[in-house]
Each structure stands twice: as C-alpha cells, then as structure tokens.
C-alpha cells in the first residue's frame, strides 16, 4: 500500500489528505507518523471545522492514553528494590565491622585482667591469682582421672560395691 505524502497541515490540500488518513485510521491502517500528522491537522486552524470534531475528540483521547501508558513505566520500578539495595549495603557495612572486630589480633582484643574473688574477697596479686588458676586446673584433673576411670571400671565389672 502506498503511503500518501503528508503535506503541511496548513496546505490547501491538507484536508483531502486528512480525509484519506481518517478512513485508514478508523481501519487501524495508519502509521504512528500519520496519526501524529492527523493530530497536528485537527489542532491547526485548517482543522478547526466542525467536520473534524469527532476525529479531534478521538485523537485527543488516544494521545492522552498514550501519555498515561508511557509516563508511569519510568516510575513503575518497585521502590522496594531501591530500599532493599540500601539495606543490603548497610548490612554489608555492619557485617564488615563485626568481621574487623573478630579479625583483630587476640592480644589487642584481650585486655590484661588478673582478679580473683574468694569468699567475696577481691584478690589482685598476680602471683596469688595465678596460683589459684593452677590449683583450679589441678583440682579438675584429680577428680576426673580417679572418678572417671573408677566409674568406667565399675560399669564394666558391675561391681556390687556401688
């Protein structure tokens, strides 16, 4: 199908072109460029005649619908995505902070502390506290070795003395 030449809307023969394009528009055979030309024509002084009132209303309505269909697409991006990206960045920053804290050398993470409380009494003498520590470890072993071995033998032999 040959496309008509589209004159300037103010050209004397523009009205004939407009009638031809109107028929094709109603058959949905016009291109976007031809529809735009029609809209310019009906909005120009040459198209102010009452003959074009119906076409003007249809083209205006279509133009408005086209605007409504295109504009929201740009803002249709979910806002939650932007919020989620920001939250992920915050989470990564917080995680990096905890990781840095954990990766610090142990000597800088453990301040010197040497205190014992015996019966409510506070002891800070280093030698005394270390003695208490060694005693604490020793007392744990003495019972472990005798009681555990004894218990295991007792279980195995089912010693009536229990």
């Amino acid at each position: 199908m040959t496309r008509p030449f589209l004159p300037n809307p103010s050209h004397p023969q523009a009205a004939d072109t407009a009638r031809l394009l109107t028929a094709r528009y109603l058959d949905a055979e016009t291109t976007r460029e031809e529809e735009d030309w029609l809209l310019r024509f009906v909005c120009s002084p040459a198209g102010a005649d009452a003959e074009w009132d119906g076409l003007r209303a249809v083209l205006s309505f279509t133009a408005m619908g086209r605007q409504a269909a295109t504009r929201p697409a740009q803002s249709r991006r979910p806002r939650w995505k932007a919020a989620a990206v920001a939250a992920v960045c915050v989470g990564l920053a917080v995680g990096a902070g905890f990781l840095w804290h954990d990766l610090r050398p142990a000597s800088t993470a453990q301040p010197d502390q040497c205190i014992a409380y015996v019966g409510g009494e506070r002891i800070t003498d280093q030698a005394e506290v270390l003695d208490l520590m060694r005693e604490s470890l020793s007392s744990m072993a003495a019972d472990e070795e005798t009681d555990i071995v004894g218990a295991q033998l007792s279980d195995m032999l089912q010693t009536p003395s229990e």
Partner: protein
Amino acid sequence: MKRILILLFILLPATLAAQQGLHIATLFGKDSPLAKRQDVTTILLSGKQLKSYNLTRFRSVQVGQPTAADVQLFEKHITADIASSKDKQIMRRGQRLYYVFCQLSDLQGGTHRYIIYRNKGASHDGGKDIHLIYIEGKASANELKSMF
C-alpha cells in the same frame, strides 16, 4: 521469594555476631550473683599473664555449697553453649551432668575455646562443689589436659 532472600542476606551479619556470646558468661565476673557468696571462688585472667600457657583468657567459678538451683542454672547454661559443639566429652550420673570437656567452635584467628565442668556432688566419692572453667587460647585440647 526474592524479597525473602534479600531480607535474610541483610540479617546474616547480625546473626553471626550474636553467636559470639555464651550463656555461661553470666556466671563469671564481679557482676555475677555468685561473686559475693562466701562459698564461691571466681578467677578472671586474660592478657599477658597467660602468654606462657598459650592462652588468652581463663575464667573459673567454683561453688563450694551449691544448691539444687545452682546446679540447674549451671547445667542449663552449659547445655545451651555446648549444644552445637561436635567435640565434647560428657558424663552423667542419673539426671545430673557430672563431667564435661567441650571444645567450642574457634574464634576468628584460630583461637580455641573450651568449657570444662565438673559436679563433684554427682560423684560417688562424696563432696559437693561444682566447678566451671572457660578457656580461650591457641593451646590444643591435649596441651590443655596436660596442664591439669
């Protein structure tokens, strides 16, 4: 589904950090309800004093006259802390924990953590005290046991 995954990813760092705290920590220190009792000995050591032992932190609390509530409190905290550990020795006498030697997951930097517990009141030899030790350091479990 995508939103749930993103939310979980955000919460991950906070979750990891929370696991550093132990339940037994409340049993040590001057702020512990046990600290001022006449039958309790608490030892708090950290830093350069422990360097020769290849340790960085030592905590011990020994209760000479524990009540049933004391024992239950200790067992509750210890059980919670050792639950996820795969390397542990546990002995029970009836319903009571008698002995625990547990290696917890390492801290960042390869620092080992250990919980050692004994309830002498649950032994056959008599005695009553309960004794809990928490240790951090580079010493292995065998090195630690050699210190006993």
